[in-house]
């Protein structure tokens, strides 16, 4: 039962990858601001610096706070710098 379950997981995951669910999108400045504003309610980005070849960004907010955006699979994770 355990091995069947593991085989099922591996099959589904490899199938997902094989049919193209394996994107690694890149950011531009507008997209970085949009992502930061979407994940941080109330945050208003004014400028963004792209790094890691578009897989990350630092977005400065109107209030001076800086949000870091980094790739997580085909999605993004945002953290406010302390």
């Amino acid at each position, binding site marked *: 039962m355990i091995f069947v379950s593991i085989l099922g997981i591996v099959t*589904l995951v490899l199938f*997902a990858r094989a049919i193209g669910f394996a994107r690694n999108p890149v950011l531009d400045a507008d997209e970085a601001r949009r992502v930061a504003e979407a994940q941080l309610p109330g945050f208003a980005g004014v400028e963004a610096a792209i790094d890691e070849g578009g897989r990350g960004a630092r977005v400065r907010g109107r209030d001076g706070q800086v949000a870091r955006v980094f790739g997580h699979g*085909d999605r993004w994770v945002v953290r406010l710098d302390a």
Partner: protein
Amino acid sequence: MTFPDPIQLATPAFIILVLVEMLAVRFGARGDYDWRDSFTSLTMGFGSTMAAVVFGATIVAIYAAVASHHLLTIPITWWSGALCFVADDLLYYAFHRSAHRVRWFWASHVIHHSSQHYNLTTALRQTWTGFWSLSFAFRLPLLLVGFDVRLVLFVAGINLIYQFWVHTEAVQRLPFGLEYVLNSPSHHRVHHGSNPRYLDRNYGGVFIVWDRMFGTFEAERDDEPVRYGLVHNIATFNPLSTATHEWVAIARDLRDAKTWRGRWMAVAGPPGWTENGTPSTADAIRAAWEARTSPAE
């Protein structure tokens, strides 16, 4: 009378339906997948079944012990089955609402919300630590009233199976007024949203009427797409980190708490409560959002 294990019977259908949804999305249906995200979700589901094996006997023993103090003797019939199913779903609502409002319970339930995707594999992204969060305790009233342990476990399995299919973007709205009564893909998409409007809404398992009755219902709006995931999304696909990240955060907050109130709230307060600084509870986020926007929006 013996009952089959509905989860075990349904598992092959789960796998087939995931494959069908993947292909449907690939050919244009609404939805999305990421193989890394699916790996985490499916592995969490596998681990959850292993946890059920480890703790299942203990839970059944507790249920049997509590059932021995039953108030009534309710026979196993079609009507008691239907009654038990509805009552179980009401208790599921109570469990689910508590799981979002009390951090000790949230530490287990957060796993289910930790994906930024919403597809049928998300349904299988389940906790490994539900036993420690006492999720089984919410069904004890059924046993005290007098429902048979086997019947309670059976309807709980049916409830869980129902909730599998609502984890999809491929279905828009249900026909024939069913959206008013049943939890649906649309209602449950809202539940998985981290948009301030959608936070902590639509706790219902099978019936959405509980949310309508208790004031926690929010309809999905076509002009506000759901942003899936957490207020503070996790940045890992590691199943072990996914399973334990909120427990680790609780331990860190307990260590750093300066007062006994802070320690209590770190465990029993709402997720996002903080002793210092700006809270990021659902209520605080919604209040700040409402202050920024007009009521008409």
